[in-house]
């Protein structure tokens, strides 16, 4: 019976992602893996380690540091880099502001999220990276549903959604002109639930932020934000103490936290499986307009 040869859906997704990661190492001269410290980039680094085992990951990890990170993220990042024997490159938003290349947003909803794009493109250019591996998934957001595994960017780093290369079977066309680069998304076909189920199955360590913990939060426009120095409070806003956890981890100014009691990966899976809100539902950066993500992606966002 042929059905004896069968792998479950997580192993099939894993095999697909490993294939894409190896394809990047084979087709590009100088790839880099974008690492934010969130669970998707932790998964990416983990899969990259698997793909090239027993050799080391043949490209560096690039972290675009807004300077407004949860401190837990940085600790976790440094430990992971050491354990994997990986190379880490940091692009700093603060440094770009200090150099006068960027101007901080002002007001209550000021965020450095939008400033990241400049630093990202700048870091890619300086490092002469020709492929940037990202942890974007097609189930995250409607503009991402049409993203390719190998996504071509012109010399300005822009995405042209109407003129994407067709992608068939598992033949990935990474050919490009000098100065152009690619964004590559090996976990395109994973959903949030797949990511959690896989991380649980493999016992992958995760930052404590993903598990329910007590934290001072403020409620703004229906989103809970972690109270910190980077977010100016409106006079009417109250700081409350709640049991919360992050579903995504980004800059503190725009990453919403969720009320939760889930303290283990199994409990998180339960929560995700029954969740009635998408994980980006708490991302203030997506809420600026209906096509906020598409607009940012065209400019060169992650």
């Amino acid at each position, binding site marked *: *019976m042929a*059905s004896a*040869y*069968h*792998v*479950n*859906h*997580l*192993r*099939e*997704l*894993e*095999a*697909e992602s*490993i*294939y894409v990661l*190896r*394809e990047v*190492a*084979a087709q590009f001269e100088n790839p880099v893996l974008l690492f934010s410290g969130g669970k998707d980039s932790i998964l990416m680094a983990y899969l990259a*380690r*698997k*793909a*090239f*085992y*027993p*050799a*080391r990951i043949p490209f560096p990890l690039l972290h675009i540091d807004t300077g407004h990170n949860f401190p837990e993220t940085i600790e976790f990042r440094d430990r992971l880099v050491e354990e994997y024997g990986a190379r880490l490159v940091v692009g700093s938003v603060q440094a770009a502001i200090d150099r006068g290349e960027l101007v901080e947003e002002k007001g209550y909803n000021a965020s450095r999220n939008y400033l990241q794009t400049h630093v990202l493109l700048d870091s890619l250019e300086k490092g002469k990276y020709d492929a940037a591996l990202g942890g974007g998934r*097609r*189930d995250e957001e*409607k*503009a991402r*549903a*049409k993203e390719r595994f190998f996504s071509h960017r012109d010399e300005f780093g822009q995405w042209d*959604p*109407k003129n994407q*290369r*067709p*992608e*068939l*079977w*598992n*033949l990935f*066309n990474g*050919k490009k002109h000098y100065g152009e680069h690619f964004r590559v998304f090996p976990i*395109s*076909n994973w*959903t949030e*639930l*797949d990511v959690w*189920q896989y991380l649980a*199955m493999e016992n992958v360590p995760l930052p404590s932020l993903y598990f329910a913990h007590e934290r001072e939060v403020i409620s703004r426009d229906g989103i809970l934000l972690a109270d910190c120095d980077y977010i100016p409070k409106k006079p009417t806003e109250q700081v409350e103490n709640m049991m919360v956890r992050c579903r995504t981890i980004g800059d503190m100014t725009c990453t919403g936290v969720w009320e939760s009691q889930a303290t283990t990966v*199994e409990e998180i899976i339960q929560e995700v499986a029954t969740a*009635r*809100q*998408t994980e980006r*539902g708490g991302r203030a950066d997506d809420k600026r307009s*209906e*096509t906020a993500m*598409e607009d940012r992606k065209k400019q060169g966002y992650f």
Partner: protein
Amino acid sequence: MSEQHTELLRFSTAGSVDDGKSTLIGRLLYDSKSIFEDQYETIKETTARRGEEGVNLALLTDGLKAEREQGITIDVAYRYFATPRRKFIIADTPGHIQYTRNMVTGASTANVALVLIDARKGILEQTRRHAFIASLLQIPHLVVCVNKMDLVDYSEEVYERIKEEFSEFSYKLDVKDVHFIPISALNGDNVVEKSTNMDWYGGSTLLYYLENVHIGSDDNFIDCRFPVQYVIRPNTDEFHDYRGYAGRVAGGVFKKGDKVMVLPSGFTSEITKIDTFDGEVNEAFPPMSVIMLLKDEIDISRGDMIVRKNNVPEVAQDLELMVCWFNEKPLQPRGKYGIMHTSQDARCIVKDIRYKLDINTLHRNEEDKQIGMNDIARVVIRTTKPLFADIYRRNRNTGSVILIDEQTNETVAAGMII
């Protein structure tokens, strides 16, 4: 946590405005609880803002600004939902003839093609086109949903007539497994829940079909094919002499101890180990990504292929292809293109155009050799170096190629080896 037993099933849909495709997908996502509240609220608001009534589930699938403005799906959109039995990936494509290339793209990896027919209209040119593309791309299973049954009073007669008409033309196509289901996507009849309006139908619902169709034999487990993707050489003290060939099994079952042959050199050796990060495995088969270690030191690099000595693919520079053209710039007779096949990268020249196929009538036109965007044609090519090829019907992984414009680097065609 233990390993789960859920399988992955990929299916493609094609449809145009008004045939209810978006409603059907919306229904599958909604009834399987894969739509989130915030997504639902967003499309509800958008529907109201446009002055439409109810909740337009089609807005869920139309992601790009241009698509939302024009109310059509331009590109391939990927959707995901899961039930306890299977995880599903939907490649949702537009159905109009000007988007044939998108349909071909969505069909290339699908296990199942879902063809929608409006019960009031019966089989249209578009229905034939979708079925033909499914057969051309060798999608193993075809499920035909006769939709909008509520608008024909759930008539068995209408359903049977459409079924018969479809079968009459589909026998000319190369599809192995065709299944019919009468549904109403709008009301949910036979989508997830069994319809109470069609007692005459004794078959399964669409979701039941998708959850249970046998896909275990869709891959080729007979002809051993391992395209070498990347060579792993750690150069560390611990793994000093380690030299592993990384890749994804494209066909057959490889076992430790197997006698193998390496193409193009023709050298033979033996598999000493099939390695992964999680340790050694005894056998490897599609779609696994593994590392092969061989007994003998042979010069092997990306583009080579490890096969069984008694079962080798064709080693050929002259190939016949069915191509679907993707680019605004038409195919140039005698033109030179880049070609990608498994992990091989070569160049080729188009030596001859045999015929252009009318995908509505399946007529072969040997006079018209203008191959433009969305056209399907049979061509003869010669490559700069030998490819290790199987016919596409036998193996989708080793029988498929893409052609690349050498100036713009764009992917200009998909090709299936015949």
